[in-house]
């Protein structure tokens, strides 16, 4: 009887120790950002009303070019940090930039973009339905879409001209 309890006890301690070890060596849940399930798959459909009021815009119309889909909002401070870089990126022609205004007011977003001289197309997403399809947690988040419509990178947080240019160059060298 005592022996049985000893075996049960050792098993219990081993189980709890293994559990503690796994927990201790894992990053906290709030820091765990797993790779996006969208990577290396066809990009989800993305279309909506143009923020500039020029009808509907669709990601499908960018097929054949590298596109940086950038989810942003005028109330987001990190978005303000990356906006000058994105404006430059769009002007450089390295990649087409398609902005998605996330949970925002159209008038605020328009003045926000004008402040940074960002003149690329932007889709309104007032209800956040596009962002859910793309698995966006909080802006800014960007996705690099290859000319064949496959998502090849997800960038969480503010990005820069050099990072996106490097990614595009690499993607090209890998045959995308």
């Amino acid at each position, binding site marked *: 009887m005592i022996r049985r309890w000893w075996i049960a006890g050792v098993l219990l301690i081993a*189980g709890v120790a293994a559990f*503690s070890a796994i927990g201790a060596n894992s990053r906290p849940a709030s820091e765990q950002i797993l790779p996006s399930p969208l990577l290396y798959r066809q990009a989800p459909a993305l279309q909506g009303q143009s923020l500039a009021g020029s009808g509907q815009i669709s990601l499908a119309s960018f097929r054949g070019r590298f596109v940086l889909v950038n989810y942003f909002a005028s109330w987001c401070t990190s978005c303000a940090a990356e906006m000058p870089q994105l404006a430059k990126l769009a002007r450089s022609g390295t990649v087409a930039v398609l902005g998605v205004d996330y949970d925002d007011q159209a008038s605020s977003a328009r003045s926000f973009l004008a402040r940074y001289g960002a003149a690329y197309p932007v889709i309104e997403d007032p209800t956040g*339905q596009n962002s859910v399809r793309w698995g966006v947690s909080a802006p800014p988040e960007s996705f690099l879409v290859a000319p064949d419509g496959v998502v090849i990178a997800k960038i969480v947080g503010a990005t820069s001209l050099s990072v996106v240019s490097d990614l595009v160059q690499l993607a090209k060298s890998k*045959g995308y």
Partner: protein
Amino acid sequence: MTRTKRRRLAAAWAALFVVVITAVAVAVFGGETSSGVQARVAGLEQEVRCPSCGNLSVYNAKTASAYSIAGFIRREVAAGQSDQEIIDSLVASYGDTILMSPPASGVGLYLWVLPAVVAMGIGYEVYRSLGQNRVMEKPSRDEARDGSLARRRRLPKISKTFALWGGVVALAGLGGLAALAFLPGGGPAVGSELSAAETLASLGAVKPALQGFNQVLAKQPQNPSALAYKGWLQFNEATSQRDKSAALAVMSKAADLGPGDPQAQLFLGLALFYGRQEARQGAFYLDRFLADLPRHSLLAEAAPLARPVYAAAHWKIPAAFRVGSGVAVRVPKG
């Protein structure tokens, strides 16, 4: 009342009865009521995690992403999608982490089974303790007379074994919490920076990736993942033996700091073989990599590089490495 009038009255009552019964039947069986839809939406919102607020469900969170997901759920329910279809759509966009309950597989299965096993053990011990109390406590004449036994029975008696194991579990839990607080990985949040740098590294963007890992290390100098990646990238860029040794030292430190970090073990194992031809030492760290339960995608990328290490060491190639590119993961073109 004439016969005709009575017939008309009976027909009117019959018609009224049919209308009432039909209305009740439609209300009960004919599609979801608005309160049924609300309950379904609320149930789904409780199953789904708010992606930007740690451990809160969409139902309890008040962030923009939570409202977006709640709106998505309402739309999909209205469009006639089933609960499973809605959950599957969200998992396809966000991954399993969007679910409040862990999936019942891998480590998630352990999380499901462990509480049940502990509860069964506690239940058994309580049952046994109570049984022993009943057997042991036969009332003496005096006790029966003055009622002291009745008073004693009101106090639950816990056996020594039960108390001992309770103490062990509590101590192990405290140990786990202490380890979480003091082991490397604590400190300022670096998850998104590390993830971005890993993405760059996986695409081969060495310079920006190194900048990213250096930013992480500025905040957490002992972060094993960042150290391992930094060492691996430096190792691959090294042109002299001196640079390779410096990179190996960084990877060695990472492997020591993160015995449970698969990347740290993998990179050191590969570098020892490909940089110094130390096959056995390399295979030793690759075994540790496998013991850390790496992701399938990482395993698939590592397998072709790991097999020559085992072959050179004359060790049996582990089954996990033999599957090679059989794992259904698409890696970047190259």
